[in-house]
């Protein structure tokens, strides 16, 4: 059960560092902006035995909050893309990191904004008291949901991970409830910085270094500067947080948001503050904004503070030590695993130059039941876009590559049952018995898919638009990083890029003509000089 300890340590680290960000709440009490001091509410001055009890108290005043949460993806883990009809959301998609939620809920639900999601199919999505207010509104940094507890924090002291000899103290729910406040980088980050099973693993532009980032890492979240929280850009109304990778904004409205202006645009875009002509002194750069997303130049690399996982090969998972134990092997840095019996082979990379592509905001997923590309690479998700659809800009992407199980009979992706609930003895889980067939069978059962037992591993690829960790302008790309024959945009088609796409014919003919002219006048002049000298 060591596997969980890493994640726990990371989650704990995230939460501990969150403690350093209790300032806003403290300020509020000392005469800040908030009109309420939750520590003075008698409804919260009691001993709470569980999360749902706290929620019940919250809902006593915030009557609509749970209903609002119920409408969000954070709660439903399901979202139907109206353009494609595809049923997305964490309950449905398969990625090429930990792969999928079904059969693993008790573990995964540590990042669900609810309590008790033991099974995503049977969970009571109508329950108001099952909404977890504290995970987002905690300001103490002490509230931790533990993988394996189906979305609950520890209510009593428990050995965690089981049989590890380590113990987790129960969370002081009363104290946390009395200290609630606005969301912060730490609360959002408690899940989003640790996506994919650990710090910096998934996104490449979101990790725990953003809890108190220096300016070079993020000009907006710079803890000593603008100090933006996530919600500064993801400006939220009624708990519905804008800005989603399921519906990204490929080409944002050009007009910045303004009071009084009717605007349905996504506030979590650069343009919503900066507009489409943000370069004041170097106005020439504004001619780029029609085709190029701000992020392309202003996020020159991702994983600038710590390495991110770039590939994950599940096909090698399950190799054990001679005495049948789980093993891990560190990579050259000594900080990250390059092999883990539970998960297979990894590659971590730092300061990664993104892949670039046209994005118009439309995205297509390869879902359970969809055919995989057995001979090539299966795109887990594919961001659509082109130079000439008028709706695309060139974006930076993290492309994450992997190998994961698929069904040889029906040629579609499989979900392995990997993780178990706290203290459960579930021999079908891969992280317990390391048997693929049983793990895949359990996963297929949970997803209601047929599985005859024949499987193999298929190469997959998943794209993550890079949009966070905006660098200071001095660190933005320079012209020739794209304006050259083999620059960053070498493979971007559909657009004429000066210096990359020079017409070779006109260049050849032009220089030949110039050379001919020079030779011509040199010969002509030479003859004149020669004759003049001879004449003398």
């Amino acid at each position, binding site marked *: 059960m060591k596997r969980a300890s890493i994640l726990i340590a990371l989650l704990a680290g995230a939460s501990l560092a969150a403690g350093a960000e209790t300032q806003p709440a403290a300020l509020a009490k000392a005469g800040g902006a908030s009109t309420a001091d939750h520590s003075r509410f008698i409804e919260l001055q009691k001993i709470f035995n569980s999360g749902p009890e706290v929620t019940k108290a919250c809902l006593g005043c915030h009557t609509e909050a749970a209903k609002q949460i119920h409408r969000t993806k954070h709660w439903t883990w399901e979202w139907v893309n109206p353009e494609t009809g595809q049923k997305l959301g964490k309950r449905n998609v398969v990625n090429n990191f930990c792969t999928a939620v079904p059969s693993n809920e008790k573990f995964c639900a540590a990042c669900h904004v609810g309590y008790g999601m033991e099974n995503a199919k049977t969970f009571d999505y109508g329950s108001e008291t099952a909404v977890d207010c504290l995970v987002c509104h905690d300001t103490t940094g002490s509230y931790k949901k533990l993988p394996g507890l189906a979305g609950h924090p520890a209510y009593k002291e428990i050995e965690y991970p089981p049989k590890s000899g380590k113990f987790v103290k129960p969370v002081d729910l009363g104290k946390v409830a009395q200290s609630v406040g606005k969301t912060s980088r730490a609360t959002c980050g408690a899940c989003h910085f640790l996506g994919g099973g650990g710090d910096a693993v998934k996104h490449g532009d979101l990790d725990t270094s953003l809890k108190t980032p220096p300016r070079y890492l993020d000009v907006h979240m710079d803890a000593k500067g603008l100090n933006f929280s996530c919600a500064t850009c993801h400006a939220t109304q009624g708990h519905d947080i804008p800005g989603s990778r399921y519906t990204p904004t490929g080409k944002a409205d050009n007009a910045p948001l303004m009071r009084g202006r009717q605007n349905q645009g996504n506030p979590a875009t650069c343009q919503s503050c900066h507009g489409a002509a943000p370069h004041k002194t170097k106005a*020439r750069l504004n001619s780029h904004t029609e085709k190029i997303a701000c992020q392309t130049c202003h996020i020159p690399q991702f994983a600038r503070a710590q390495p991110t996982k770039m590939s994950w090969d599940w096909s090698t998972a399950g190799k054990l030590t001679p005495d049948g134990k789980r093993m891990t092997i560190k990579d050259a840095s000594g900080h990250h695993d390059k092999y883990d019996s539970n998960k297979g082979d990894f590659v971590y990379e730092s300061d990664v130059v993104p892949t670039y592509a046209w994005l118009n905001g439309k995205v297509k997923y390869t879902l359970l039941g969809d055919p995989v590309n057995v001979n090539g690479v299966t795109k887990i998700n594919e961001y659509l876009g082109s130079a000439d659809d008028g709706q695309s800009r060139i974006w930076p992407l993290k492309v994450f590559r992997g190998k994961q199980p698929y069904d040889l009979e029906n040629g579609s992706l499989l979900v392995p049952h990997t993780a178990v609930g706290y203290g459960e003895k579930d021999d079908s889980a891969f992280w317990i018995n390391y048997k693929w067939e049983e793990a895949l069978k359990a996963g297929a059962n949970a997803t209601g898919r047929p599985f005859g037992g024949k499987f193999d591993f298929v190469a997959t690829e998943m794209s993550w638009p890079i949009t966070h960790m905006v660098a200071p302008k001095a660190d933005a790309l320079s012209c020739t990083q794209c304006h050259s024959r083999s620059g960053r945009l070498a493979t971007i088609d559909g657009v004429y890029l*000066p*210096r990359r796409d*020079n*017409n070779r014919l*006109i260049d050849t003919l032009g220089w030949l003509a110039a050379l001919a*002219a020079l030779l011509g*006048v040199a010969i002509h002049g030479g003859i004149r000089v020669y004759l003049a000298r001879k004449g003398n």
Partner: protein
Amino acid sequence: MSAHSMQRIYVFKFFERFWHWAQAGLILFLLLTGFEVHGSYANFGFEKAVGYHTVAAWSLVGLWVFAIFWHFTTGEWRQYIPTFKKVNAMFQYYAFGIFRNAPHPFRLTTLRKHNPLQRLAYLFVMLIVGPLLWVSGWFYLFYDQWSAWGVDRSLSLEWVAFFHTLAAFLMLFFVIVHIYLTTTGHTPLAHIKAMISGWEDVETEPTPATKQP
């Protein structure tokens, strides 16, 4: 040719000389920066070259506005009315006569200060090469306005760049030949001096005697 047969006439007025040299400087600078932007060589660095190229282009536009005004108010535009008379003779002179000190087939006056080849060449530069550079450069410069102007569907940057580059090579070709031909006066620097001072030495009368080498 002997000095006594020469006469000094005032051919190039002050504005004309100013126009010529300012334009010469700007065009050379535009070629220099333009071919760097193009990626042909490195000097200022791409970003600076783009900036300088833009400033020089706008300066040239300003200069041309004045020059056009000057040409029409002074009637000097007539100097560029094309003629094919003696064009053959000009070619023959540059191809053969010049090597034998043959007399120049064209005699310059204040009313006809350009020989027929010059007229054609300058007219070509001013009516074809210049406008090609201007129009393509204009669209290049205002690339971000294309959609606002409603031309983004009908124009392609590739063709704009093609014509801009083509015209730049034509200009380069012209500059090379033009600079060389300035040395073909009665002394190698005679034409240059005339373009500086405004005064050109011209032969008064062609006489059989002066034809002799």
